[in-house]
C-alpha cells in the first residue's frame, strides 16, 4: 500500500517534466522503478568500502594500544 502511494506520489512529481521531453532522459528506467536497483548497487559497494575502512581503523587502534 505504502509502495503504491509512493509510486503515485513520484509519478505526480514527474508530471511537469512530460511536457518537455524533446531531450531523451532515463524516464523509462525511472518509471519502471529500476533506477533504484542501480542506487542500491552503488550504496552496497560504498557501504562495503566503508566497512573495510572501519575495520582497518579498528585494527590500527588495537595495534596503537598494544605498542604503547
Amino acid at each position, binding site marked *: 500500500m505504502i509502495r503504491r502511494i509512493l509510486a503515485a506520489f513520484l509519478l505526480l512529481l514527474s508530471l511537469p517534466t512530460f511536457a518537455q521531453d524533446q531531450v531523451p532522459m532515463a524516464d523509462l528506467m525511472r518509471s519502471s522503478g529500476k*533506477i533504484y536497483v542501480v*542506487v542500491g548497487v*552503488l550504496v552496497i559497494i*560504498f557501504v562495503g568500502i566503508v566497512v573495510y*575502512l572501519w575495520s*582497518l*581503523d579498528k585494527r590500527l587502534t588495537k*595495534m596503537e594500544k598494544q605498542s604503547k
Partner: protein
Amino acid sequence: MKGMWWKILGVFLVLYAIVGGLLIEVPRLPILNETIRNLYFHVTMWFSMIILLTASLVHSIQYLSSGSLERDTRATETASVGILLGLLGVITGSLWAKFTWGAYWVNDPKLNGAAITILIYLAYNILRGSLEDPKKRARISAVYNIFAYVLLIVFLIILPRVTDSLHPGNGGNPAFSTYDLDNNMRLVFYPAIIGWSLIGFWMVNLRRRLFLLESKDDD
C-alpha cells in the same frame, strides 16, 4: 567512538550524494542527457583533490616553519590520497568525455593540465623515495610541494580559463550554474564535495597511523 564523528559524517554525506545524485531531478540538456549527474561524482573528485592538496600544502608550510617531522608525514600522506582522487578524476573524466565529446582524450587545456599536474605530484613521491635522510627529505619535499601546488593552480584553474576549454566555466563556456537556475544541483554537489573530502581525510588518517606504527617497529 571519540574522534570518529567526522568519518561518520563523511559516510552519510557520500551516501546522500549517491542516492540524491541519481534520483533528484536534473536539468535536461542535449548531449549531456543523464550524464549531467557526473557533476556529483566526477567533478567532486577534483574538488576533493584540491581540498586535500591544499591541506598538504599547509602541512608542508607548517613543517618549514616548525621543523616537526610529524608535519612532514601529514603532508605526504595527504598528498598521496589527493593524487588517488586526481587519478580517479582523470579516469572518470575520460569515460565521460568519450560519450559527450566523442573521444577518451581530447586536446583540451584542462585535460592536459590535469595530466601534467598528476605527473608533477607523482614526481613528488619519486623525489621523496630518492632521499634517505629524513630531515633533508622533509625539507626538500616541502619546498617541492609548494612549487607543485602553484603549478596545480596554474594548470587546473588559470590556464583553462585563459585559453579555450570544453569544460563548463572555462574559455567563455557557460558553467553548470548558468543552466541550473533553481540551484537544485548544488544541494547534492556541495555535500558530495565535503563527504568525499572527509572520506579522503579518513584514508589519510589510516595511512598516517600505519606509518607511525611501522616507524615505531623500526626503532
